[in-house]
Structures are given as structure tokens and as C-alpha cells.
């Protein structure tokens, strides 16, 4: 029986294993050193915040793996021998495979800052990072202040975590406004306001120069590059993005760049070796997607796709329209299609924007000035229906059509105050149009593109 070995038990590897099992009776082994059982990394923050216990982050009960005949091996892969098709583990053991799936995920970026390996410096990615945080920042008495370096999605989550225990937080963001490489100014500024509302000391345009140690080799303070200011703290969170976790691949002859290089079928240059998820890098970008996509759902999709190929139904990875979501403290964010920040706007593209006068709610719609084609939408504080926007993007609908049928797309809980009327009014004013909002229609919602 063919032996499929998967390195990494994150969402990509586990999805691949589950779908291979669904479609075949191949022997499957998943290897991980982080934790024996699959858990949702996305939920680690909620453990520290006391919303959940670790067991709640495990989507499958522990008996699931044996019942589905998926072996779990707790080990660290040191090297891959692609000639003999054998994995060498750091403890000296070996395991042979017929097909190998590399799904080893990411690791937090460190940019060679002085003091970046001191005690009390951590990322927020692995289960071990959480344990570290619990050790160094159990409460506001033990941790008088924490400094977070890097204004992305993990950074703001770490800030939220620490604030849940009333620990003072200084948040160093390199950009002049939070995440403004991705978000349009309206939204980026709104998030700035919201961060300050949560009593987080937000420092925009601030880079880390160095982390200083006390006499015990623990974090004492950090120095800001631009101002030279010293901020005393007990914990430093490094959240300046992630990169593929592929050190063990380097000697194997498997081609890598920043990640493990794969084609559309998620195959590497070596036969019977595949890579999926955060650690995979497409030779050529797919549409406007990045070559490396460290996103939860793309990992899941790659796992599903590769399982098809491995079970004899050779299938290319073709992610559909871009979408994503996040939560910035209390503000939910969803995006469908492409909305770039001002500096990323393409020729001929423009925005329609609306912001609620009081609440933290806003939308930005990207569209072509000439063709009126709808390109993408960002919503903050308003939930939208994925299927509907996916359909509208496939159908190349116009911005007018989208606005006219916005009620179909709303996904807020029942009884929520809806803002489609105000949004429409603003658009009509700005564009001299007279679009009328259509009532929500189940028929349209369920019709296929």
C-alpha cells in the first residue's frame, strides 16, 4: 500500500490527509513536533484571553485519527533523502515514504534585531509561543509593559490578548498608518482610532532599533530607531510577518526560493514530493494573488486539491476570487475581490467609499471608472455574503448592479440596523445617479453564477 507522509499537522496537511482518506485507503502518516493533535492556530489567542481552553481549539476529537487510520508521529524532520525516499528525524529515527507532502507552515520573521533572541522576546504563531507568553506575561504585575513590533494581523491580535489582562501595550508600526500597505486610508485611519480607544500606545512610523537585556539576560527595554526613545518592558512580541518554515528542506535537492517552489499541481521539482499551504511558493503568481499565500483557507484549498491529485484525479490548484477576513479588536473586516490601498490602485480604478458617522463601520468598493466593472469590496463592521460576491465577481457585474442589490449580500445577524439606504444615497450624490435599492431576494441569492 502506498505510504503518504505529510510533514506538518496544520490546516493544509490535515485537510490533505482527511481528503486522501475520504478517497482512498492509502497509508497516511502525519508528522509534527509542535503538538500531537491538530489544533487551530487561529484560536491560540482565545486561550490566553480565557475564551477557550486548548482542547476547544482541536476541531477533531482525539479518537478521530485512529478511527480514520491516520498515524500521528511526534518528531522533528532534520533532512529529506529524496533519492531513497526516506525522512531522517532529529532523534536519529527514519521513515520511508512513497509520496511526501511538505506542509510545514510558517515561522515568525526576525530581521536581525540586536537582542531578538533574549528571554521574553517571542512571536505569536506556535503553541510554544503561547506557553512563553503565559510564562512572561501572566498578568500586569509580572509584565509591566509589552512592546509589539510589526503592525499586521498578528500584531493587533497580540495587542488584544495582552490588553485582555490589562497589560499596558506599546505597538510599534513601521508604516505611517496601521496596515496602510493593504488598507485604503479611510479604513486604516479608522483602525488607528480604534486601537487608541483600546488604550494601546500606538506608535506610527516607528521601527525597532534594538532590544536591551537586564543583568539576567531578560528583556529590559527597547530602543526606537527614529527617536532613540527607550521604552521599558518585560515582553517583546515580534509580529513582523511570517515566512516559510523550510530549513529542513535546504539540503534535499528540492527547489526552494523563499518557500518550496511548486507548479499549479503543487508538485515540486522532485517526483512524488509536493508542498502545500504557507510553505509553498508558486513559480508564477496566480492572478493577483501572491506567490506565497499564508492564509488559512488557501491552505485548506491546497490540501483538498492535492488530495485529488494523489488519489488519481490530477487537479490543478485554482483558487477562485480572492476573499479574506480578520478582526481588529472589536471591528470585523471582510474583503471580496481586490481592493488595494491607494498606492496599489491600478490605472483606471477608483473607489466608492462610505463611513458611518458615529460607529466603526465603513466600506470601500473598487471599480473601473470607465467600464464600471466591480472589482472588490472591503467592509468593516458589516458582514457580507461570500457566495453573492463570488457570483457577482464571476459575472463581472457593474458597481451600480452591486449597490442596487446590496441587500442580497448583507450577512449581519437579524434585527441589525442596515445601512444600504445611506450607502446608496451617498453614491447617487457623488455620481449623479438614481439607483434604487432592490429588496432582498432569496431567488437571486440562491441562483448560480
Amino acid at each position, binding site marked *: 500500500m502506498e505510504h503518504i507522509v505529510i510533514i506538518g499537522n496544520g490546516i493544509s496537511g490535515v485537510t490533505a490527509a482527511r481528503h486522501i482518506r475520504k478517497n482512498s485507503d492509502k497509508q497516511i502518516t502525519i508528522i509534527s513536533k509542535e503538538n500531537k493533535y491538530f489544533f487551530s492556530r487561529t484560536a491560540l489567542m482565545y486561550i490566553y484571553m480565557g475564551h477557550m481552553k486548548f482542547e476547544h481549539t482541536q476541531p477533531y476529537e482525539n479518537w478521530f485519527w485512529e478511527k480514520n487510520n491516520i498515524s500521528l508521529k511526534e518528531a522533528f524532520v532534520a533532512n529529506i533523502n529524496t533519492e531513497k525516499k526516506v525522512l531522517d528525524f532529529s532523534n536519529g529515527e527514519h521513515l520511508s515514504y512513497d509520496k511526501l507532502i511538505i506542509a510545514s507552515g510558517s515561522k515568525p520573521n526576525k530581521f536581525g534585531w540586536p537582542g531578538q533572541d533574549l528571554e521574553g522576546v517571542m512571536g505569536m504563531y506556535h503553541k510554544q509561543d503561547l506557553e512563553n507568553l503565559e510564562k512572561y506575561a501572566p498578568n500586569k504585575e509580572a509584565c509591566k509593559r509589552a512592546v509589539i513590533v510589526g503592525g499586521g494581523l498578528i500584531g493587533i491580535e497580540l495587542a488584544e490578548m495582552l490588553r485582555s489582562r490589562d497589560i499596558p501595550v506599546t505597538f510599534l508600526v513601521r508604516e505611517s498608518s496601521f496596515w496602510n500597505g493593504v488598507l485604503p486610508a479611510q479604513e486604516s485611519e479608522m483602525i488607528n482610532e480604534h486601537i487608541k480607544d483600546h488604550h494601546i500606545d500606538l506608535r506610527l512610523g516607528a521601527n525597532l532599533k534594538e532590544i536591551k537585556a537586564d543583568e539576567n539576560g531578560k528583556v529590559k527595554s527597547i530602543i526606537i530607531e527614529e527617536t532613540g526613545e527607550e521604552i521599558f518592558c518585560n515582553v517583546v512580541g515580534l509580529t513582523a510577518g511570517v515566512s516559510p518554515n523550510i530549513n529542513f528542506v535546504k539540503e534535499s535537492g528540492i527547489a526552494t526560493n523563499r518557500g518550496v517552489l511548486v507548479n499549479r499541481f503543487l508538485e515540486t521539482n522532485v517526483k512524488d514530493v509536493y508542498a502545500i499551504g504557507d510553505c509553498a511558493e508558486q513559480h508564477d503568481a496566480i492572478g493577483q494573488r501572491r506567490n506565497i499565500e499564508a492564509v488559512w483557507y488557501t491552505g485548506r484549498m491546497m490540501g483538498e486539491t492535492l488530495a485529488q491529485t494523489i488519489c488519481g484525479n490530477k487537479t490543478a490548484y485554482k483558487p477562485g476570487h480572492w*476573499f479574506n477576513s480578520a478582526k481588529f479588536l472589536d471591528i470585523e473586516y471582510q474583503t471580496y475581490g481586490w481592493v488595494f490601498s491607494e498606492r496599489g490602485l491600478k490605472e483606471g480604478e477608483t473607489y466608492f467609499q462610505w463611513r458611518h458617522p458615529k460607529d466603526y463601520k465603513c466600506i470601500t468598493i473598487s471599480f473601473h471608472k470607465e467600464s464600471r466593472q466591480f472589482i472588490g469590496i472591503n467592509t468593516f463592521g458589516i458582514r457580507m455574503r461570500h457566495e453573492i460576491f463570488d457570483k457577482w465577481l464571476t459575472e463581472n457585474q457593474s458597481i451600480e448592479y452591486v449597490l442596487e442589490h446590496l441587500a442580497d449580500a448583507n450577512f449581519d445577524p437579524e434585527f441589525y440596523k442596515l445601512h444600504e439606504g445611506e450607502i446608496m444615497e451617498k453614491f447617487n450624490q457623488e455620481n449623479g445617479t438614481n439607483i434604487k435599492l432592490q429588496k432582498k431576494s432569496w431567488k437571486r441569492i440562491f441562483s448560480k453564477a
Partner: protein
Amino acid sequence: MKAIKYTGLLLFLIGLAIFTGTIFTGSFSLTQTELDNYIQEKGYKSEILKTELKNAVVTNKSLNIFEFSSRVRGAFETSNNFYDALIAKYDAEKNWDKKGEQYQYKVYGKPHTLSYNLAKKAGKGYVRDNAGLMWFLTFGLGIIGALLFILPNVILLGKPGIKNNGIYLNSATNRGAIAWLVLVYLVTFYLVLYFMADYAVNWTYILDPISKALNGGEASQWFVYGFLYCVIMLTMGVRMYIKYRHNKYQIVRTTSVLFFQIVFAFLIPEIMTSLNMPGYDFKNAFPLDYDFFFDWNIENLTNSGGIGIFILVWGILLTLVIVPVMVYFFGKRWYCSWVCGCGGLAETLGDPYRQHSNKSLNAWKLERWLIHSVLVFSLVMTIVTLYCYFSGTESLIGIKSQWIKDTYSFLIGAWFAGVIGTGFYPIFGNRVWCRFGCPLAAYLGLVQRFKSRFRITTNGGQCISCGNCSTYCEQGIDVRSYAQKGENIVRASCVGCGICSAVCPRGVLKLENGPETGRINPTDVLLGNDVDLMQLVNKK
């Protein structure tokens, strides 16, 4: 702010301590005249009982309720034992006439109930004489203290949004020592209420004035329970309003359960009683209202003129037509988390414990066996009861009507719904009864699963499997297992509380009533994969 909070907690605990302490106060005795009147009123014929009761309760000694109860129960027991012995004796002698005569002297009823009825008349002391002040020191302090504890959350919790910080870091909400203490208190409370009501007779004195104002009569232990129920729901309702103030669905739903509890379950029945009508909770549907078809209720209703007949017809209509039709349009949530009293308590007092429901597959299996067994049990009981009522017999296929009614009332009515259902909130979560026991929920669930427009829609591929939804599902549904596959959630047990949708950080879940087509979508998934891949997967 924190100081206010802890002052509130202190006041609440003082109120609770006084409330509990009143049980041990007062003295209980009757004068000979009072006792004679009582015996005459009840029509007791046993001379032994008269002597025994006289010895027991006509006394100058200051008896507390426990001594009083023990003496009264002893008196009834002695009398009954005496006549049982005579019955046995005449039975052995085959003296049927004499044997038959003895039965009129026996007194039937549960010992603690007999004792309660007498104690209600026998109590003297500070609590009874100062009901108003005592109300303030118990209910009053409790309410003020609880509100002082809850209201600062408007500021302490910060901006509106999901406020679950620290739930698993706190002893009270993480099955710690405080949770176990609360469990012991609640279980004891229910045991006293259901099985030893005489011990709590002092509580009824505190509410006598309110009861008289509402229905003209003195308060019973059930009036105390009903009143307490409303007070707790209101106070904890305030907590819900603050905690979920960003979520209009929760606000509207909380208002609805409070309204139905206070107006329908409490005020209307009391007012009906004061107008000499049978007190009836118009929203309490059979088979949750399991004694609706008991002979005494049917007789009571048929003897109450037009209103009785109306209630009888309404009750049948409610179960057979209104309930299923509403479930078809809105899901069982319209009842379980918008109207029902049990649900109302679960969604207010029980909200801090919702995360303790068991999500394992085994719990789901147990749930399906147990809840449907209770449904069958309640239906068998009702069929037996109705058959015996109309045919005038005592049993059907060997099942005695009285026995099955008593067994159901004891096992399901008192133990399952009360002692376990509410008493175990702090450890097993707030919907133990609703999930594993309620026969009405089982019935509604079958309708919801197979013929309804209600579902929780999963928003395409946005789920990140974080598990907030499953953790906070009070019914133990593993919501995430559906959401992460892009499947809608259509489950018999879902009561539509809407918390999964509220706690989801990515806007993945929405409770909706929509067309039946597309309600269950196990294969028609859009996880973000290109459509033609999904077609390939689906073809297989």
C-alpha cells in the same frame, strides 16, 4: 468601579445569607382551637391523629421548622401505621367489613406536604411579622447587590463587542470551587422546593403580602419559586443587555423571554386565580406541560366554564398546530429561546455557564437516545392517563395510570427538569434539561430537522476553525464541524440562541429563515476553490 462591583457582591451575599438563614428562624405551634379547626377543615377522622397532633404541635415550646416538621410527620405516620395494622389484622381475620371501615381514617399525601400545610398556619416570629422588611433584606438586598455587581460592566467591559475575557480563567465560570458551591446551593434549593417544602415555609411568609395583592391568597412554595424565577431572570437579563449590547438579536430575544416569563408565566395565571379562574400559563405547551392531560386538570378545566374549555382547546391547538407551524417558519427558537420559561432561565441565569455543554460525539449520541425516550415516556403516560380517564379504568396494558404519572412527575418533572436541569448549570452547562430531557424540545426538534425554513447559514469559505461557535454553543452542537466544511447547520437540537453567530470573529454564521431548497447543502460548498474543482469533487 471595581469597588462598586465588590460592594454589590457583598450586599448580594448578605441578602442570600439572610434569605437562607430565615429557614432556621421562627417558632411553630398551634392552639387547640386552631388545630381543631384545621382538622375539621381537612375532615380528618382519625382520633389517633388528633391526639398525636395535639401532643406534637399544641405546645408552649419554641419549635423550629425542623422539629415541627419531624413531629407532624411522626403524628401522621403513627396514625397511619395504627390503621395499617388494623387493616392487616382484619385482613388476616377475613373480616372484610371491619377492614373496609379503616380506610377512612388513613391520611394520604406526601409527609412533607402534610407538614407544609400545617406549618403554613403554625409559623410565628419575626419573618412573618415583618414581611416587608424581610423582603427588603432578602430579595431587596439580593437585587440591589446583583445590580451593583452587574451595572459597572457598562464601563468595565469596555467598548461594545464580544466580552468573553477570562471566562476560563475564573473559578465561577471554569468549574472551579465557586462553581461547585453554586451547584450545591442550587441542588439543595431544588431538593427543598420539590421534596421538603415545609422547611422553606418561612420564605412564603416574606411573599404573602405580594401574593395577596396579586391573587388574593397566601403565598405557596410555588409562588415563591415563580416570583424568585422572575426576579432572577430580570436581574440576569440586565446582565445580558449589557454583555450583548452590540447585538440587537440578543437584545430583542432577551426582551422576549423576559416578557413571556413575567407576563405569561407569572402575572396572567396569578390574575386568573384572583378572578376564580384556573391559573394557566398560555405559552406552556404540552408535553413540557406534562400534567395538562392529567385527570385533575381536565376536570378542573371542564368544571371552570367557558374559560376552562377555551384553555383546553387552546392547549391542544398550541401543541398540535401553533407549535409546529411556527417551527416551520422560524425554527424551534421561537419557543426555546424566545418564549419558554426554562429557556428563559437558561439564557439569563445560565448564560455564564453556556460553555460547559459537552461537545463530544458520545454526548450527541446520548442526547438523541435520552431526549426521544423522554418524549416517548411522556406520550405513553398521557395515553395511559387519557385512556383511564375516559374508560374509568385504573390501568392500560398493565400500566397503572397513577403509577406512571407519579413516576414521570418524580423522575422527569422534579429530578430531571429541576434538580439536574438547573442545579447542574455551573458544571454541565445551562441547557442540560433542554438538550437531554425536554419532550417538547424533542418534538420541536423533529419538526425543525425535517420540515422547517430555519437554518444557520455558513458564509462560504470564511471559517477559520477557531471554535468559538462550538465552545459557546449551549446545546453542545459542534458548530465548527459544519462551518469549516462550508455546510449550513441544520440540527434538531439548535435552539437558535444566536450566540455562535455573535462570537464568530469572521462573520461566518447567520441564523436565517429561508426557502427549504438549499437549506441543507452538504455537497454544494464554496470553500473558495474554483467552481470546476468543486464540480469534479461533487461528481465523484
